[in-house]
């Protein structure tokens, strides 16, 4: 059975595409045949984050409008055998997506034997975002510990509960997971940042992981490499844990406690 996962947030710039790239790469590393679709028509960026921007010939909209086959448009990941990227169109406008078109692509991917389809949602609550969420079985709601992001996540949760296919057809509701990104334990400790408990209290959905604020994420996107590939980096480890938890494994939370640097570390100028 193919599982459809939407990575969404409402607010822009919180780490949806970063998460989509690392999460789909993580699933592929576990041996699952995975497709990741960019729904941000007109502002595609998943190709850049995955480092395949120069290999885009056909896109999602070409497939929907019958100008290319799905096989022609799917880009095989450069690092992982069983990961495929379906880029968004950069030139069309967001109304080029239709529900029937998206459904056909998703059904074709199912027929091709994909285990997971990861839908990278655009920001906002317009067509692209609604369509990315519509077919979802599971939703990863990416949230920053910051008021506007939490509010927008709450709004998106409302939309998943009322406008997704599962909601409309009265099926079992979409499974919702909270993923906190740009988390800074020191600032939480100092009372300057909402804690993960605060956000769990407010949004009341299952926490799937916390990605600490990290320099690695920018370094990874600079190179066009999903952050999960950066060996030994906190963000990479956090994403690896998130994939494991998604697959049902128990993993204790990491990178959420602040420990004061010791004297020696301070003298040596460590961070």
């Amino acid at each position: 059975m193919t599982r459809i996962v939407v990575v969404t947030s409402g607010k822009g710039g919180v780490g949806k595409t970063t998460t989509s790239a690392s999460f789909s790469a993580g699933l592929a590393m576990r041996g699952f045949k995975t497709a990741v679709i960019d729904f941000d028509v007109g502002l595609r960026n998943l190709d850049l984050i995955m480092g395949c921007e120069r290999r885009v010939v056909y896109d999602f909209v070409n497939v929907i409008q019958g100008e290319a086959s799905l096989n022609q448009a799917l880009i095989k990941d450069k690092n992982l055998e069983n990961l495929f990227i379906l880029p968004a169109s950069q030139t069309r406008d967001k109304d080029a997506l239709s529900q029937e078109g998206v459904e056909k692509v998703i059904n074709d991917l199912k027929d091709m034997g994909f285990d997971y389809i990861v839908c990278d949602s655009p920001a906002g609550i317009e067509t692209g975002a609604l369509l990315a969420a519509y077919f979802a079985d599971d939703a990863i709601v990416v949230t920053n510990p910051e008021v506007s992001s939490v509010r927008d996540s709450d709004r998106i949760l409302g939309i998943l509960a009322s406008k997704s296919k599962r909601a409309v057809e009265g099926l079992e509701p979409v499974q919702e997971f909270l993923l906190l990104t740009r988390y800074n334990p020191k600032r939480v400790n100092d009372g300057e940042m909402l804690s993960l408990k605060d956000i769990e209290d407010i949004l009341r959905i299952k926490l799937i992981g916390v990605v600490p604020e990290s320099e690695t994420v920018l370094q990874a996107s600079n190179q066009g490499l999903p952050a999960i590939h950066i060996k030994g980096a906190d963000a990479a480890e956090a994403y690896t844990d998130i994939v494991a938890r998604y697959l049902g494994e128990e993993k204790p939370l990491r990178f959420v406690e602040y420990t004061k640097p010791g004297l020696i570390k301070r003298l040596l100028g460590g961070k």
Partner: protein
Amino acid sequence: MSFLSFLLGQKKTSASVAKERLQIILAHERTGGSADTPDYLPQLQQELVAVISKYVKVDPNDIKVNLERQDSLEVLEVKIEIQQDQP
């Protein structure tokens, strides 16, 4: 805030202010949705007209249904004007 920090005159952390503000605004938005009036009001109005006009003569425009919200209080107001029989 603990009693001690109250005595010491410590301020609330900005994170706890953020949490409080979010809890208030989201409680409001979750009940009301984005629209100010729930979508059952027009139907409620129609059905009221149907029931009342069984017994008294009313003009559909003389029945007004309104919902008001103040903090934690919701008031559903139904106003019915019954026409006096014309001589």
